[in-house]
């Protein structure tokens, strides 16, 4: 059985909470978006949302800001996420906007935020234990008897969904897991 994109996002969010990360944004499919990042190259005269980004998960811990993109099992889409994450830091104006928004969200939610925060990335998905040298991977599996369509509240989803973090280095492992 394969995890849905929602299962992947949910399980990673729970993993991050259990590893002392504060969740700033959580945008799984079908949910209300927390916030979106405007596209600095958009023509301000155009009223639509061209190029607006909503990373699936944004989390902070100490001096780190983590951005996670989640997918179910579709390899082409996972690779597209990797490209998106690699391109993120190129657009410095967008990075500044992200920090500005995250700072205000942290104030509203009483989290500490350091403007000199280091931005790190991860991807999350199921099926293929496919890794990249510069982006950490959350690998998510589900048990065959997991049914997210109907859940008895006495059950815990994480009894059915497993998350494994595959770091890119020992230091990366320390940052994510400690």
């Amino acid at each position, binding site marked *: 059985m394969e995890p849905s994109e*929602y299962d992947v996002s949910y399980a990673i969010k729970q993993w991050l909470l259990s590893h002392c990360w504060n*969740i700033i944004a*959580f945008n799984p499919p079908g949910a209300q978006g927390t916030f979106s990042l*405007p596209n600095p190259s958009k023509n*301000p005269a155009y009223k639509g949302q061209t190029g607006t980004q909503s990373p699936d998960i944004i989390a902070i811990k100490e001096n780190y800001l983590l951005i996670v993109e989640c997918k179910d099992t579709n390899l082409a889409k996972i690779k597209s996420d990797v490209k998106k994450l690699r391109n993120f830091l190129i657009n410095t104006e967008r990075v500044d906007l992200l920090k500005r*928004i995250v700072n205000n969200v942290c104030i*509203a*939610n009483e989290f500490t935020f350091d403007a000199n925060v280091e931005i790190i990335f991860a991807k999350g998905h199921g099926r293929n234990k496919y890794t990249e040298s510069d982006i950490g991977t959350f690998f998510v599996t589900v048990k065959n008897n997991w049914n*997210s369509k109907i*859940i008895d509240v006495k059950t815990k989803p994480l009894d059915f969904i497993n998350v494994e973090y595959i770091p890119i280095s020992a230091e990366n492992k320390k940052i994510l897991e400690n």
Partner: protein
Amino acid sequence: MVYIIWHDSDYDLAFWVYKNSKLRNIPEEVLLKELPHDNTSEKLLASLEFPRDSIILPTIKYEHPDIIIQKYDESTNKILCVNEFMTHTPQWQHPAQRFSRIYGASKLKIPSALVVPKTKAKLEKEKKKKNPKYDEKSYVLSPVLYSLFDKTTTINQTPTLIFHWPDKNGYLKTDPEHPTAPKLVDDIKLWFDFVNLAIDDKITLTEPTMKKIIDRNKSAAGLIDIKNYKTIRGIVKTVDPACRVFGILKSQLPKKIIEREHSMVFEPSGLSPPTSYFRTDPYAGMLSAFDNLFCSDDSGSRKYNLVLRAKGVEMRRLRQTGTFIDKRNHDLSMCPFTDYHTVNKLSDDDIKQHLLSKNCPYTGTKQQRVYGEISDLILFDDGDFYLSD
């Protein structure tokens, strides 16, 4: 007995409702169940369990709300409340876009709530400048929305309430463990009072907490002037001097339309942008809002026909693409979407047969369910028209 928290695929939000409501402390079974992804017969039949789930059908006939709470045992099958959450900027068109979800539930006399930011900040690029910077712009909840919920409460004699998503300087406070849910402070405590009263089936218009929110909505309500809405062409005489109704022979229309002396014509200009044919958002929600605001009196009777002039849209094309299905011989008295009274008298087999009959407009697209069945009449560019059941 079982309680079901229906959700629109966000089971983490449903867990938050469970954990913070009185459902957490009751001995009965509680299930979190995902609503069907759409209203097609196939999806409904695949995901609903009869007879328990049949009660959901009237509640989702127009659209799918975020959270619905149901109570079920051998003697009771009841929807207790319907709830919608939004995190977008709260100027008129965004909350209006979601109104058909609340409209349908409140009409069924189900206590209904919208949780919406009172203020939301957004970074926006300066316009008309050479090197534009991003400025913070704050959007506030439109007073028209309070008027809309106040009038809807009056029409349906059912609490139809606005609760504010807590914020600080326009940035939303969220639950630390369930970040798609609001933080449990301020109005969200009141919202849980509402949910808990609904679970106990003790919601009335005069119950003190309900009255407090109803009075607050009333005092925040703005004055409404139909002339301020560019999408409304106006209120016009239904029958023209040539004894036709919008170019249609009177004999082709039901008596109820002809008998209403005036009609309100909703004529948005953006129904057929290059990206979609017969677009629904935000106009489907607006149409239901305009019904309550302008076309219906305080008892809910239509004083004006609600006419949608679908500019740039041809019925011929909607039929070809399946956007509108042929509803000939659709029997409203046997339709499980009609209301709770009707669905409760139908057998499981009746319901299944109706869903499979392929002529029920409520198993169709959002265009047909909302535009088609909330308005009295849709006028298309090719001269064709559509009448609600």
